[in-house]
């Protein structure tokens, strides 16, 4: 009898551990959200990615539809090649979709915003986004502004 109680206690302990793992997977890391379906990859080349990091979100109209898989430098063109993982449920992106690197708030992390075009054909797996806009670098903007202000008196 005593041994049976002991085995039950150990069994409950194991089950509690299993539930803890399930809780960590679903509630804490939000795993279910990303394991629903498959993904497909598309690549995009940017002149400047700013401080974009792998695993940054990819969004359309603010809704997250994928993640940045990897960032590499193209040795021929010296542009950044960014691989994007997009959920299969959003597989009807037109081929003339534009990719733009944006920032969440003033100090937030970078993400990729896609704005769909009007083409009939859709991007397929391993497709490429050709129209891209580089990240806005705050320092460059300030530099340009200062430069313009210096020039102004000459024009007037």
């Amino acid at each position, binding site marked *: 009898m005593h*041994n049976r109680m*002991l*085995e039950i*206690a*150990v069994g*409950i*302990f*194991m089950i*509690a*551990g299993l*539930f*803890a*793992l399930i*809780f*960590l*997977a679903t*509630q*804490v*890391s*939000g*795993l279910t*959200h990303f394991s629903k379906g498959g993904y497909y990859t598309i690549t995009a080349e940017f002149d400047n990615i700013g401080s974009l990091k792998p*695993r940054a*979100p990819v969004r359309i109209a603010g809704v997250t539809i994928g993640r940045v898989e990897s960032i590499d430098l193209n040795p021929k063109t010296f542009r950044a090649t960014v691989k994007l993982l997009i959920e299969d449920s959003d597989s009807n992106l037109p081929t003339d979709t534009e990719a733009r690197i944006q920032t969440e708030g003033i100090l937030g992390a970078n993400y990729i915003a896609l704005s769909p075009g009007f083409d009939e054909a859709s991007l397929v797996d391993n497709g490429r986004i050709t129209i891209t806009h580089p990240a806005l670098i705050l320092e460059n903007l300030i530099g340009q502004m200062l430069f313009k202000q210096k020039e102004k008196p000459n024009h007037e």
Partner: protein
Amino acid sequence: MLELVSRLGRVGIQNCQQLGVSGLFLSRILFRRPRIGASYKLLVDQLFVVGVLSLSIIVVSGLFIGMVLGLQGVNTLQRFGAEAQLGQLVALSVVRELGPVVTALLFAGRAGSALAAEIGLMRATDQIASMEMMAVDPMWRIISPRFWAGVISMPILAMIFNVVAIWGGYVVGVKWLGVDMGAFWSNMQSSVDFNQDVLNGIIKTVVFGFAVTWIAVYQGFYSIPTAAGISLATTRSVVYGSLAVLGLDFILTIMMLKGW
């Protein structure tokens, strides 16, 4: 002068010898023909002693650590108007570091010391010698179930600790201090990655459980068979276990952050 050098040499040789003995000891635990049917009962007994009975201290300390993290987090994040990031702060610090390390330290104190003292007393009262006389292998009968019980319990305890600590942070942050519930969970889910954070934390706990129980069982088995020897073995199992956990945590964190 020469005496000093020779003493240093003796200490060095002794330490190397101990390291070798403990390595052989570990290999005797690991590489043995498993006897599943007979070992099962012994293992369940030890899982109860090592795992289930450690649960209370793990749950209570997890709750308090989570609640303190919630309080401190809200207090600090409020200065930047970023209380919404509380979930991320609590979850990442608990899952990556606090959960594995604090559980392992408590485990070394609660279970490791008990293991060392128990086995040390068996050695001191000649129970181990009499087992060998009766052709019962003490490695199989005493050491192996305790070792595996420690290795199995430690990750389970740490996962329970993680959940309780996050819940504690949730109770203080959301229920008490009024952080938005949706922001708490969604920020947590968007920043915590299952492979990078949760799984790496679990790998840490397995390594810590291995190290802590190995040290405890070794210290007990090779303790000096006197009252003072048992007290020394118990102290050492806690001190060496805790130091090993902290050192290994640093090494594992480097490996995980910089890529394997």
